[in-house]
């Protein structure tokens, strides 16, 4: 009996995973319903204020499809996405590293708190101006602004994760001979992940928004520059279409990458929920 269950376990695991993917996809209907409500309100606004102030959702969708039909648009989208993702990746590395260190050392956490308040308090727009002076008109400006805007969030998430770790688990690991590195790898980081993932989701959104803003203000290509041009031409439909594309890119990254990782890490939480409210 022992061997048969062993042989069946991989199959069962695959079935389990497929089930979770299907459940996740099915939950997409709820998201779609929410978006439909937004579109309906949008339509009301369009019918009240007319085409010039607010083009209809359908017209915007058509403009979006027209833009996406042009291969050049994909290059523009890729440019913005690359800047946002590089900035996001760097701030994840830096924020997580510093946050974990600060979580373990109470003294550096105290030192870091006022610094964080200062960094969070300075508006991103001020950073854009500084970054433009320092780096000129190029990728560096956008990446720096994204880095400054999203690192504090990730830092706080990582530090909170370490600070709120279960000391009892640490004691247990020590009793079984786990050294500091082993404890960090098997307990610390695992606990940090639970706090870090929500922070990552938020800062990924921040990264895209700030990247577009920096591009618009510094006029250095990407979606931001296209928005600036649409504004200059008073082409509201195109402007909205670019917004839609930026949001679409963000949604693709979030649901294609962040949520599946999270679902995999948080399986035990789903197991804790009573039957019937698993989504």
């Amino acid at each position, binding site marked *: 009996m022992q061997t048969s269950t062993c042989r069946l376990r991989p199959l069962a695991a695959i079935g389990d995973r497929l089930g979770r993917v299907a459940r996740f996809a099915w939950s997409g209907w709820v998201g779609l319903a929410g978006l439909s409500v937004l579109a309906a309100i949008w339509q009301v606004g369009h019918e009240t204020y007319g085409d010039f102030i607010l083009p209809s959702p359908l017209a915007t969708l058509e403009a979006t499809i027209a833009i996406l039909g042009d291969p050049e648009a994909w290059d523009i989208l890729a440019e913005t996405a690359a800047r946002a993702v590089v900035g996001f990746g760097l701030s994840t590395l830096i924020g997580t590293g510093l946050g974990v260190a600060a979580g373990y050392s109470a003294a550096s956490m105290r030192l870091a708190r006022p610094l964080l308040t200062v960094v969070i308090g300075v508006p991103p727009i001020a950073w854009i101006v500084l970054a433009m002076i320092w780096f000129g008109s190029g990728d560096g400006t956008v990446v720096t602004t994204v880095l400054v805007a999203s690192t504090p969030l990730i830092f706080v998430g990582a530090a909170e994760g370490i600070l709120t770790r279960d000391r009892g*688990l640490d004691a247990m690991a*020590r*009793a079984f001979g*786990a050294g500091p590195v082993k404890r960090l790898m098997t307990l610390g980081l695992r606990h940090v992940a639970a706090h870090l993932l929500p922070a990552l989701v938020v800062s990924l959104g921040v990264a895209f928004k700030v990247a577009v803003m920096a591009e618009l203000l510094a006029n250095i290509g990407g979606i931001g520059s296209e928005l600036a041009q649409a504004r200059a031409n008073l082409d509201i439909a195109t402007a909205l279409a670019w917004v839609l594309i930026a949001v679409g890119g963000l949604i693709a990254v979030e649901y294609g990458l962040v949520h599946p990782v999270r679902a995999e890490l948080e399986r035990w939480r789903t*197991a*804790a929920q009573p039957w019937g409210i698993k989504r």
Partner: protein
Amino acid sequence: MMALALQRIGHAYFGRTVLDAVDLCVGTGEVVALVGPSGSGKSTLVHIAAGIIDPVRGKVQRSYRRHGMVFQDPHLLPWATARGNIAYPLRMTRMGRRDRQDRVARAAALTALEEDHLDKYPVELSGGMRQRTAIARALVVEPDFLYFDEPFTALDVALKRRMQDLVIDAAAAAHFAAIFVTHDLMEAARVAHRIAVLDVNGRGVAGSRPLPGDPGTRSDRAVFDLVQGFLTDDPLFRHINDIDERTAA
């Protein structure tokens, strides 16, 4: 043959002395129940013995190969299944996957955990099952010494008894030595070869009493008489049930 020798152990938390000059020896295959009033530093002493905290003074001499530990709170990883939790101590060793699985299966069998329990997360298990998992985790390293830090205090009476039987049987089968911290004399009289009583203020071991026969061979009547005898006639146990929760830290 000594399995563990604690010499002149002293410890303090933020300047407040909780243990001072404690000497305690445990022989190979001997189960010692460590009792004492609340706040006498029993837990601190086993934590020191198990290497979780370093003592301020004194020396710990371990002559056994490997130890395992069971805590009052099961301390299971919430994100791992029972199987993953039992296998956790094996991650500190360089053991192959197949060997690990075999060890987990053996430890689970010793604690009567069934296959479908092993794939559940701790949140899906009852309190007794969680403690069973924690015991299996302690046994998976095939220890010759076990530390029990008030493991069954939070369990109800019937469950407590079953868990004690589990420990008695496992100790008989694997011949491990153990320190079993408890404040329940009945429990101490059931599971141990010897009862050591910690001084009220943690200033050394006040004394110890060997128990007749092996654990598991004593009848309920005998256990009850033993405990009554200790409480009424033996001055060593005079302060055992003293507790002042206002001064207890």
